[in-house]
């Protein structure tokens, strides 16, 4: 296998996915902004061809009109890292599940569904994990106000 090179990876991914992917970087990570429809293809490539075998963190942020899904990927033992982000509209909050690529996505996606309300297509057991089954609402959304449980 070739030596891992971030530039080569970005070049190859941009060549493969065209305008569905956009790269950026912040102080700590190289960021790949991907279209939700191409998420599984990108993640499959990252795991199989570039060695990102450790999905460290999977979470979501509520930005009002859209939800942003955030994935922090690392490789063991080479210690490369990359950050993948994608956005879904609030009115149709659905995304492909990554459970077939990394089984660790199982409960993390259930937690995002439980607390933020995003549905994951292809997840075999998408039920609430932290709150009781009969709880109503998705508390981490910005329109769920705190304070004053009855």
């Amino acid at each position: 296998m070739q030596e891992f090179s971030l530039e080569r990876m970005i070049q190859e991914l941009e060549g493969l996915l065209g305008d569905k992917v956009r790269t950026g970087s912040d102080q700590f990570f190289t960021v790949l902004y991907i279209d939700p429809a191409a998420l599984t293809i990108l993640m499959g490539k990252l795991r199989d061809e570039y060695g990102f075998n450790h999905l460290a963190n999977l979470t979501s942020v509520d930005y009002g009109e859209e939800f942003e899904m955030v994935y922090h990927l690392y490789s063991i033992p080479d210690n490369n890292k990359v950050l993948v982000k994608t956005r879904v509209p609030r009115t149709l909050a659905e995304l492909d599940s990554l459970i077939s690529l990394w089984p660790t996505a199982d409960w993390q996606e259930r937690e995002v569904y439980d607390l933020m309300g995003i549905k994951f297509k292809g997840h075999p057991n998408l039920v609430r994990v932290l709150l009781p089954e009969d709880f109503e609402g998705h508390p981490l959304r910005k329109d769920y106000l705190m304070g004053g449980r009855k």
Partner: protein
Amino acid sequence: MLETDIYTVNVGPIHPSTHGGLHVEAIMDGEIIQDVVVHLGYVHRSVEKIAEGKTYQQFVPYTARLDYLATNLPVLGYCQAVEKLLGIEVPERAEYIRVIMAELSRIASHQIAISATGIDLGATTGLMYGMRDRERIMNIFEMTGGQRLLSSYIRIGGVAADIPDEFIPAVKSLVQDIPRMMEEYNGLMTGNEIWAARMEGVGILAPETAIQYGVTGPNLRASGIAYDLRKAEPYGIYDRFDFDLPLGKRGDSLDRWQVRIDEIGQSGRIIEQALKAMPEGEIKAKVPKVLKPAAGKEVYHRIESAKGELGYYIVSDGSSKPYRLHVRAPSFINLMVLPVICRGGVFQDIITNIATLDPILGESDR
């Protein structure tokens, strides 16, 4: 032939061996486990939502209550994440004190893991030995932070106050006693025939499965993978210390048990080196009263907690409160592998596997 049926046995959430409020449903065919379903959420305290209503400094005590057995580790992770966000540099003396407190917390956490495994498997004396030795660490925490269990001694920018005079002799005498402690734990429990019969070959976790399921920490190292964030992605001043990573060979419960005992010894080495090299100086950086990171800035900072990779994902919107704070809890993710390692075993192996995976439900449910 006799007709048999599948039945379900519930373990927990109110159970002496479930480390908090863990509810495990065991689906059994006779004595053999067909499947295990884990139910979480009994200790869900909505910490991530509360974080959006508190300032960065106000949230520090909440992080201590996440992993309450190794309290300085989650507090350290959070403070370092906020310092990364704001670009604050911590003074040298504070860094060394932080390393000592973090490694003491790691020892305390492993001592409880050892004690709890002891009592879960029926060896009550194991509980007493571990708790007795841990009391010395509780004294040290009380001497510095004022609190035995949940000291928020580590703060954003450094530590809360300078160490008192009794600190260094107390830590030195503790470090000198660590080989004796390890010998006692090994002598009492590890070498015991019944212990080996209950732990050897039980709950084998293959290394590829461990990585796929995101397992980190001593559980991953017991399966033979030498991955420790203190060496792979050093944070603070961990790159200055010399220590080994105890590894397991088979990935079974006995390996997970042995790795934790050996890690106590390695933590002792780090503390010794830190005590020698600690300089004089400031113990807290100049931090503004109101912390306002730049809008749109985000950070994912991860540390090697006693349970595995503990990560903080903080998004700032320019105000004094975080816009989003997510805790990547190692216990939550490590527990995902419990059904995998329990299938095919017998019922009592569930207790052994939970004990050696060492989950903390406060962190797992947040």
